[in-house]
């Protein structure tokens, strides 16, 4: 099984931090216009949010794993709900690699696999180096086309 790049934790921590700060701003707004919220409480909530975000990021990194098996892409992930998903190569519709601004700054990239399914229709593997992402995309695409040839759905 392959793990993600360790720097993905920074991305997740950043996301958690942004959420915590937004929460803090909302609370400050409540304090300003509605009811009084002590500054200590706001600070506490933001701090708890930050700590939870860090713990979540670390744990998520520990559980996130994926593997190219002989017939399918297999992924394991999830902190609260642990999910193991198998995406058979025959079912891959198209493949993306993408990276946003934070990912770009961290030198990371994601692969998104689309299936025709109604739920889990797009499966994302975050935290890959750009090279690995490109590689994975090529492999998945080839496997999708190949498996098509011997067994037309």
């Amino acid at each position: 099984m392959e793990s993600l790049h360790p720097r993905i934790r920074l991305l997740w921590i950043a996301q958690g931090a942004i959420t915590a700060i937004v929460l803090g701003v909302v609370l400050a707004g409540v304090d300003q216009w509605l009811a009084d919220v002590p500054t200590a409480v706001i600070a506490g909530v933001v701090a708890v949010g930050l700590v939870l975000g860090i713990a979540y990021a670390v744990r998520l990194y520990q559980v996130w794993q994926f593997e190219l098996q002989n017939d399918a892409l297999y992924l394991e992930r999830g902190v609260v709900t642990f999910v193991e998903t198998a995406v058979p190569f025959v079912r891959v519709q198209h493949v993306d690699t993408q990276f946003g601004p934070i990912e770009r700054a961290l030198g990371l990239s994601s692969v998104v696999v689309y299936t025709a399914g109604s739920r889990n229709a797009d499966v994302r593997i975050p935290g890959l180096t750009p090279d690995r992402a490109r590689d994975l995309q090529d492999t998945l695409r080839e496997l999708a086309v190949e498996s098509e040839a011997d067994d037309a759905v």
Partner: protein
Amino acid sequence: MNRLHPLSAVTYAIQYGFLWLWVPIVLVLALGGIFDPISPAWSPIAAPLGFLAGAAYGIAYYYRFEYGITPDTFDVASGVFARRSREIPYGRIQNVDVRQGVLQRLLGLAIVSIETAGGGNTEASLNFVSESEANRLQDQIRRRTAYVKEQRRTKQRSANEGEQQGSQRPTEPDADSSDADRTGAVSGAETDTPSDPTAVPPDRADRTDPDSTPVDGEEPDAERRAYASEPDRQRRQRLFDLQARELLLYSFTSFRPAAVAAVLFVFFLATDPIIDLLVATAQPVGGPQEIGEGTATNYGILTVVSMINGIVITYLLSVAYTFATYYDFELGRTGEDFVYERGLLQRYSGSIPVEKVQSVTVTANPLQRLIGYAGLWVETAGYGPESSGGSQSAVPLAEQSRVHRFTENLTDVETPTFRSPPTMARRRYLVRYSLVAAVIVAAVFGLAQVTALEGWYFAAVVFVAVPPAAHLKYVHIGYFVGENHLVVRSGFWQRRTTVIPYYRIQTVSTRRSIFQRRLGLASLVIDTASSRTFFWGTPTIYDVDLEDAREAHTAGRKRLQSALRERARDDDLGLTVDFT
């Protein structure tokens, strides 16, 4: 390329006229508020201008909308300012539906919708074409799709022959032979059809009728033409009729959420007269004389009576709606397509190629189970014309034993012996529903604090419902890992038993929440390409032992691969068209 029926120009003109009527009014009012030189008084002049512009747009839209049948694709070009030209390969078409409302039936018009698995909504919607044109299109598309399919099969067959030279495997896998095998093998099939003359491969077409219907674009080659005009290919065979008794039972035992929405909508539209009416009906049994005077008891009676009224009216509306929707339901087959027709006011007819069916679901609510009836649905990857997504009713309601037999004939699934999740799961539901009950009690308590409500603790009665609810949820969960199919059952209020052929699996996921992990349980989600709505969740096996979930997960994946290989080799449709 063809145009729509000329009457569509009129309807488009009216439709866009009224739509655009508002644009200048809103614009004038909004801009008039910001910029002084624009006066809101202009709106009476602006409105007719908007209507005229809209009507002109509608007519232009009619003239700029073209569709056509070409050898490989169905083409639609549309748009006045923004243009779109779309080409849909016949091999990708999931289903073709024809819909007719009351007015359209009077005028002899119809709406044709064509679905593929791509995109979020209907890929081509032709409103309106004449009835005869609609039938011609449905027919032509079906024949051409069948032709593409046959061609592919021929290719595959020759490829297979080349591969396994001299092997004695019969290489005549036409629909007629496989159908005959199947109907012979299935016990209890009532109608044993003679081998189907409609499935003649195109290369045997020595009766090259002159192409009776005009085909646009380049002329197709002779073979294709022969295929597209063989008259006996489209002979229609009846599979299932909804009897009057079944229709009435279905109407009275099913409930449509749309009825609630309709009642609420009417209530908000005419709140005052309806409240007056409700007060008037409650008066003889002790309701208040008028709103604003009367004792608490009066109001209590008014509330109860109004609620009963509301429920009865909603129920009757739902009954009427179901009755009108499924009136004169008829399912038949043409070649390898299911064709259905139904509806009293709004007439629907559609065709579903059998090989596009993703999964088959048997539904039954408690009332229907009580009288021993059930319904049968088929799901495709297209997006259906209704709220039910890609799900179409094959048999709205019939006796349970018949529906089960139909399912077994249709999918060739063995009679499932359902496995239940461990009893630990029931404990989960007990806890879960207790929490819900606690929330209800807390809410009532909160209400009692802010209003004059007394005796909030009576709400604790809801706890009585918790054990039976948990038990009922538990007993209706079941799954069966069959030879070629996975069968998943769940739900008390609307029990759904879904039969998923392995070759339709898209992804398999094992999910474990923190609570499930503690109990060593897991849920298995089997995703297919059926496009369903929020109400029709993805087939899920809930709360089974982790080991069992893993086993089913592996089995599903393995059998997907082997089923795909088998399907490619045997050229199997997977489903039997003659299932009744």
